[in-house]
Each structure stands twice: as structure tokens, then as C-alpha cells.
């Protein structure tokens, strides 16, 4: 058995090229961990029964056949940058022939007849899809507790949430069930779980990665990203998933660089913004200590810190919870149980709340006061970010106001749950990219830090994060408890 918990994608590709491990062994090891650990953490909803067969397509690359020329083996890796890499997908990603539920009873038996664009791209790059990850149903949530199939547990502390809504994706990767996992980030749903599970989590620029085939939550917010163990792996995956898609009219035609090949850059003279409004939002003092340590690390690297103001960020959660439920009510209107899925009576409580809030704010007599008003505040929030990026290269922000919280702690108070997103939702309103990177541990629990850059500036985002990661060194006092 291979110890997949400690392997990165970069490291694995080296081992595969040198034929020290085979793709079959790798996939087998992951499937074994899923089998033994999933009953405890409930991260995976559906396993791809064909994964081992799919692994065998690569068996002739890991010779055993001594006459296969070294060059021929390596060139296959050049054409397939994720060759043999086992990946778990958030269950919002349509996978042809493989059940896709969005963690809702409404889609309990739904089998998509097509692949999402990102799924196609990952497969073409050689990745092996191992299965579908648990999540808050319809991506409505920040903890995974809104899943219709039971909550996912944080592998670092089974009494706590792994964050949400990409709860299963984060927990599965942290537990070693795969070497990367995918998610969606509409208001923090990748960055928050990444912070809670010691992973690197990307929210790309809105429009950088195609949303085609990904079950829509808020169509002007949904950002298609992923989790990895380190910054290099994360950049590598974005170089595969990003790009224009004719099937998604909001995607950009900008070129996609090989982000992972240009990570090393000096931080000397880089201007980093600290958001004034975030410093007086109730943040746990121990979490804040980690933020302060991160600032010192970046200063040692030559970063210059400047305070910036995003004045309208005080209204970001209110704006978010008008616009997103409105878009949700429209998107979930297609779940009628006519062409696919079961009836609307199977929507869970949070889905019902959001659909109804959205219906209310879009309804006649209320549209101007709520929805249209929120669209105007959105303009202001985006302008705040644009103006900040005229003064600084990147922002450094906390991810979560608290440590990973206990299962059940916020589940009965929808508003308290919404406030988990104060440091992450504004970036979705503005459409800018952001990365959550492990920054430390408090009481044995992971704490991440967030870097933010302007739209389509993922290369700089990764460079800043990489510089930080290299300087930070290994994180101490963290132990997987499953």
C-alpha cells in the first residue's frame, strides 16, 4: 500500500516516471483508504467502480516491459500532465454514467448522460476519477451539515466540521483518499474547507474555469476550483482546468499559462494589502495570531504591507444573501421531477429557505428594494476591490473568523452559519481569485490564510502563496485522527 496522505501530485508523477510505483497500485491504495475510512468520515457518496480498469490503461507506461524506451514513457506524461493521478470530484460535477446527486435526495438516483467540461479536461489530462464527494446539498452551506446523506467529519477532529460546502472534497483529500479533489466556491465553499483541513484551496477568477455541467447554485458567483496539498499541485491543476469554453458564455478567452512553471518570484517590494474592515470583525484571537505570524513571514520576504479599505464589504453578506438565493431560486426551478430527479417535496430545509428568500426578493413589489438594490451594492463592492488593487498587488486576509467549529454548533442558527463567510464571500461578489493556504495550527486544528489578487491574476496569486509556503515550512502539531 502506498501512503497517499503524504504524497503530492508532483512527487507522484516523479515516482510514476521512474516506475517506482504503478498507477494501479496508486488507485488501489486510494480505494482501500476510501473503503476503510469512509464509514467514519462520510466524505465520499459514490465510488467509481471502473477506477481500477481505467488505471489499467496506463499499465504499459510503468514497465515491467524493459524494452519500452525511456523517452516514449516520459512523452506520454508530457501529453497528459495528470497521468494516473486519482482525483475525487465534488458531487455537483456531472459525470457521465456515474451518479451525481449534489448531496440532495432530489437527485438520489440521477445519472448524468454527459460529463462537465472540467471533468472532460481532467480525464484528457490522464486523471483517474475515483468518486463523488459529499457536500452541503446544492452547495448551500458552510459546514457540510446540510447534506441529505449525513454530514462529513473533519479528519483532524471527528467532532468538528471540515467546512463546507465542499466538505467531502476537503475531508477526502486530507484523509488520503485521493491526491486532489474538486469543488465549487460561490461564497467561500472551497476556501473555508481548505482552511479547516490544512489544504490549499483555490477560488479562481469567475470565468477562468468553465461552469458547464456543474450543477448551478448562483450562476454569476459559482467559481470552479480545487483542493491540493500544496501550491505547486494547485497551480498544475488550474493549468489543466482553466480556459475558454464555447459551452459557457462567461468564460474568458485569455490564454492559460502553465502556472506551476513560474512560481518562483521575489516578494521584495510587493505591496500587500490588509483590509481595514476585516480587522474589526469579530475574529477569534488565536486565529488572528496566525494571521499576524503570516504577515511577519511576508515582511521577512520583503513584502510591504499597506492598509486598504473596502468600505462596502460591511454589507457583503447582506448583498450575498439577496443575490445568491435569488439566483438559486431560478436555478432550482429546473428541478421539477419531470425530465430527471424526484419531486420538489424532497428539498431539505436550507434549500427551501434559500428558494423562498430568492422568490420573495425577486417578486413584484420587492424586486427593486432588495434584488436591484443588491446589484448596485455589488457594483460598489467590485469598485472597492478594483481601487484596492491600484494600490497593492495582493491582499492578505483571514479565511474564517473561528477555528473549525463543532458539528451541531451553528446548525440551528442559519444566520450564524451565514456569518462564517464574512472574509470569503466578498471575493465572489467582485469575481476576483483567492487562495486559502495552510498557515498554522491552533489546539491541534488547522488554520489557513487567504491571498487575493485582481481578476485573472492567478499567476501572481500562486507566486505570492508559493513564496509564503516555502518560507513557512512544515506545519506542526497537526494529526489526522482517522
Amino acid at each position, binding site marked *: 500500500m502506498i501512503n497517499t496522505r503524504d504524497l503530492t501530485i508532483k512527487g507522484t508523477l516523479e515516482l510514476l516516471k521512474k516506475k517506482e510505483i504503478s498507477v494501479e497500485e496508486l488507485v488501489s491504495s486510494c480505494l482501500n483508504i476510501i473503503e476503510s475510512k469512509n464509514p467514519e468520515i462520510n466524505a465520499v457518496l459514490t465510488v467509481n467502480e471502473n477506477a481500477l480498469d481505467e488505471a489499467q490503461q496506463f499499465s504499459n507506461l510503468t514497465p515491467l516491459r524493459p524494452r519500452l524506451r525511456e523517452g516514449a514513457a516520459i512523452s506520454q506524461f508530457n501529453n497528459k500532465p495528470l497521468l494516473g493521478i486519482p482525483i475525487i470530484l465534488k458531487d455537483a460535477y456531472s459525470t457521465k454514467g456515474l451518479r451525481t446527486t449534489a448531496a440532495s435526495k432530489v437527485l438520489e*438516483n*440521477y*445519472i448524468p*448522460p*454527459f460529463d462537465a467540461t472540467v471533468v472532460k479536461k481532467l480525464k484528457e489530462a490522464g486523471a483517474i476519477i475515483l468518486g463523488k464527494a459529499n457536500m452541503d446539498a446544492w452547495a448551500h452551506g458552510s459546514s457540510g451539515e446540510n447534506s441529505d446523506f449525513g454530514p462529513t467529519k473533519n479528519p483532524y477532529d471527528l467532532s468538528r466540521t471540515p467546512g463546507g460546502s465542499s466538505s467531502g472534497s476537503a475531508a477526502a483529500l486530507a484523509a488520503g483518499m485521493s491526491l486532489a479533489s474538486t469543488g465549487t466556491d460561490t461564497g467561500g465553499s472551497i476556501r473555508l474547507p481548505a482552511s479547516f483541513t490544512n489544504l490549499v484551496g483555490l477560488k479562481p477568477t*469567475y*470565468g477562468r474555469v468553465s461552469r458547464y455541467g456543474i450543477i448551478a447554485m448562483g450562476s*454569476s458567483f459559482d467559481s470552479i476550483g480545487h483542493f491540493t496539498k500544496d501550491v505547486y499541485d494547485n497551480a498544475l491543476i488550474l493549468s489543466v482546468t482553466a480556459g475558454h469554453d*464555447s*459551452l459557457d*458564455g*462567461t468564460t*474568458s478567452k485569455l490564454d492559460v499559462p502553465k502556472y506551476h512553471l513560474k512560481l518562483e518570484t521575489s516578494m521584495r517590494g510587493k505591496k500587500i494589502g490588509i483590509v481595514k474592515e476585516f480587522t474589526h470583525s469579530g475574529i477569534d484571537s488565536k486565529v488572528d495570531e496566525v494571521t499576524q505570524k503570516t504577515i511577519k513571514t511576508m515582511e521577512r520576504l520583503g513584502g510591504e504591507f499597506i492598509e486598504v479599505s473596502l468600505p*462596502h464589504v460591511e*454589507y457583503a453578506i*447582506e*448583498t450575498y*444573501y*439577496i443575490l445568491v438565493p435569488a439566483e438559486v*431560486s431560478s436555478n432550482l*426551478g429546473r428541478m*421539477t*421531477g*419531470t*425530465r*430527471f*430527479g*424526484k419531486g*420538489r*417535496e424532497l*428539498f431539505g430545509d436550507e434549500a*427551501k*429557505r434559500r*428558494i*423562498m*428568500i*430568492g*422568490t*420573495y*426578493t425577486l*417578486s413584484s413589489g*420587492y424586486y427593486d*428594494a*432588495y434584488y*436591484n*438594490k*443588491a*446589484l*448596485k*451594492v*455589488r*457594483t*460598489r463592492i*467590485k469598485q472597492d476591490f478594483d481601487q484596492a488593487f491600484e494600490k497593492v498587488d495582493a491582499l492578505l486576509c483571514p479565511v474564517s473568523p473561528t477555528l473549525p467549529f463543532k458539528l451541531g454548533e451553528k446548525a440551528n442558527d*442559519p*444566520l450564524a452559519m451565514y456569518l462564517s463567510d464574512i472574509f470569503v464571500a466578498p471575493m465572489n*461578489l*467582485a*469575481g476576483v481569485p483567492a487562495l486559502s493556504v495552510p498557515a498554522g495550527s491552533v489546539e491541534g486544528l488547522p488554520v489557513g490564510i487567504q491571498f487575493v489578487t485582481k*481578476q485573472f491574476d492567478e499567476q501572481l496569486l500562486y507566486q505570492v502563496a508559493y513564496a509564503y509556503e516555502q518560507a513557512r515550512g512544515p506545519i506542526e502539531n497537526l494529526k489526522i485522527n482517522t
Partner: protein
Amino acid sequence: MSSTSTNLSNADVLKIAKLAHITLKDEEINTLATELSSIISYIGKLDELDTSSVAPMNQVTGLRNVTRGDEITPETVLTQEEALSNAPQKKNNLFEVDAVFDND
């Protein structure tokens, strides 16, 4: 929108549910009235902001009028069988739905 808090009645909740095609059980209505009222009061805070000189922003990409040619993209075409593969009710290779008109 007034800046005082919103208090939805059970009747309001039922009206929203009807618009949203959501059926509610009796025991849900009270709880929803409370929860929705508090959320709507919270989001009503935007009233404090003066946005009279701001244009609404529907989407952040700045893209406009993205079009494509009127051509079939084979990779997005489903066979009839594929299209019907998840249908709960089918008849004559079509989706079966509830009657819209009464048969008199």
C-alpha cells in the same frame, strides 16, 4: 423597504411557497415565518446605503453579447435514449407530464 424588521405571517409564507412551487407541511410554516423574517430583516440593512448614483452589476466579467454560430455542436447532442434515461415517466419516447387541460 422600511428599516424596521420584517414580520412575515403564515399567509405570506404560503404565498411565497406557492410562487416557488414548494409544498410545505403545516408544522413547517411557523418556523419558516420566523426564520425567513429574521433573514429578510437582516438583508434589509442595505437600505442604509445610498446607491442612487450607482448602476446595477449583473455579472462581473464585463463580457457582452457573447454569441456563437447557429451550428450543431455534436458533443452536446443527446440521443433520445440518453435524454430519456433519467425520466421518471415516459410514454412513446417522450417525457410524460401531468395533464394541463381537463378532458371534458
